[in-house]
């Protein structure tokens, strides 16, 4: 037994050292890469003098490959984080259709260059998902990039999103291509680290074989599933699922830590009040997204949760549920105020903003109440509290 333990400890130590090494190497690679990127774009922007069209074409090739190298380094770092359980997702309530549409738009130029069109078949309305938007966009980009890479010219890549057939608490997203497909016996192995499917269309194309491995790690960290559909005869279809956002699942995450109810809980709110009504919907959404990004920087992943914005008659309400006591929530409030007061888009005439903390009384939960019942009880309390809080938005103090 001791020997087994020693082997396990030795293995962990090796993993840790490898993780540190990879992290060090990828950071060291970043600096020279940054310089190549900088001077390439300096030339492309004409700051080194006028360019001929051939010079521009060659520099575009350079830039494309520098970007690819940057993605590879990012993947390397993510893969080493995944191995040492340091890959972290910062989850909040996310409108998944927006994330999908943005990824499709950002990949459409690459697709067009290969004469491939990306078609979307998205459910008209989907509930919010509980996810890290940046990480999900990374998964989408990876799947789309693969689909485009393995597709012959003049074909179509199809992206679908709907509620999962067998679980109404999950949203299912798929990316299908018309490529040569993947043999069913490889359906599991393609998610292994460093596994590469030979691509007959692009023999010799370099890739690290980390993309699907990272996708699997990220989706799993979200509590979802990712798989390759082996029932189809042509092309490949990748599916992944993400949990729907509900107050209950969120509260469970914050409330229960290490199998027990946390000692304290705080509700921290940010009100954004326009002095005159928003001139258009886009202005409101742009500002809301900005504030959301700032707040997400302040919270601790999976200990605090940013709830979906509440749209009220006189303004917007953004609430954070934090698994922390009075002191902790004051510190969080200070961080928030620092971030918000530095935002150029928020500190303009015509917009007012306020932040506030209220502690949630956990005394109301009887000692020894099963966790599930505590979650249900607190959820209904909190929903009511959020509704009451929303009514006060815009009542200037």
């Amino acid at each position: 037994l001791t020997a087994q333990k020693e082997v396990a400890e030795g293995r962990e130590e090796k993993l840790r050292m490898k993780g540190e090494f990879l992290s060090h190497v990828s950071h060291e690679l970043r600096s020279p890469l940054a310089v190549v990127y900088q001077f390439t774009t300096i030339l492309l922007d004409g700051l080194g003098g006028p360019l001929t069209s051939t010079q521009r074409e060659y520099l575009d090739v350079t830039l494309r490959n520098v970007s690819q190298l940057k993605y590879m380094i990012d993947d390397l770092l993510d893969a080493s984080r995944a191995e040492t359980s340091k890959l972290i997702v910062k989850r909040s309530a996310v409108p998944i259709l927006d994330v999908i549409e943005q990824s499709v738009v950002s990949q459409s130029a690459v697709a067009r260059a290969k004469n491939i069109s990306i078609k979307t078949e998205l459910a008209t309305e989907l509930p919010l998902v509980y996810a890290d938007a940046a990480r999900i966009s990374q998964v989408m980009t990876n799947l789309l990039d693969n689909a485009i890479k393995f597709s012959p010219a003049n074909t179509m890549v199809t992206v679908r999103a709907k509620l999962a057939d067998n679980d109404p608490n999950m949203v299912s997203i798929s990316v299908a291509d018309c490529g040569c497909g993947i043999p069913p016996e490889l359906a599991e192995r393609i998610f292994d680290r460093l596994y590469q499917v030979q691509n007959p269309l692009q023999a010799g194309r370099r890739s690290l074989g980390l993309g699907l491995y990272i996708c699997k790690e990220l989706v799993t960290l979200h509590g979802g599933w990712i798989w390759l559909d082996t029932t189809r005869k042509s092309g490949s279809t990748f599916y992944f699922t993400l949990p729907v956002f509900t107050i209950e699942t969120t509260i469970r995450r914050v409330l229960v830590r290490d199998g027990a109810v946390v000692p304290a809980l705080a509700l921290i709110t940010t009100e954004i009040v326009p002095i005159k009504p928003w001139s258009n919907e886009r202005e409101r959404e742009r500002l809301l997204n900005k504030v959301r990004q700032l707040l997400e920087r302040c919270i601790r992943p999976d200990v605090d949760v940013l709830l979906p914005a509440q749209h009220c008659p006189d303004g917007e309400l953004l609430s954070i549920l934090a698994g922390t006591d009075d002191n902790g929530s004051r510190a969080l409030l200070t961080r928030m105020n620092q971030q918000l007061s530095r935002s150029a888009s928020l500190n303009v005439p015509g917009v007012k903003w306020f932040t506030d903390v209220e502690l949630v009384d956990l005394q109301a939960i009887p000692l020894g109440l099963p966790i599930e019942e505590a979650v249900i009880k607190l959820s209904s309390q909190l929903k009511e509290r959020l509704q009451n809080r929303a009514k006060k938005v815009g009542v200037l103090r």
Partner: protein
Amino acid sequence: MKGKKVLLVEDDTDVAHAMAVRLKAKEFTVVMAPDAIAALAVARKEKPDLIILDLGLPGGDGFAVMQRLKANVELMLIPVIVVSARDPLFNEPRAIEAGAEAFLQKPVDNEDFLSAVDNALMRRAHAQR
């Protein structure tokens, strides 16, 4: 922003050179410091409108520089933008807490870089009014 003075604190001369080209193209005046000690000396002498600060520096890291800037009455109001290859997950909150206006990870997108510079200078102008 024409004529505003920016201090670049960066030990990698190529990185500093690239940022200087970008800033000069926007008609900023650029002064440079290659290490932590020079950073404070140049800041005192040149009184820049903005400081771009790397974290890994010879002679003391960027956080040490920021601490000393914020402790100096003459320099404490100069906005600082941290530009570093380090992981933003831990370093961004730390930089903001130390008083930085923004944290950008290398390689930095040009538009992000220039808009962070503009934002920092605009807020400073706003605060001085």
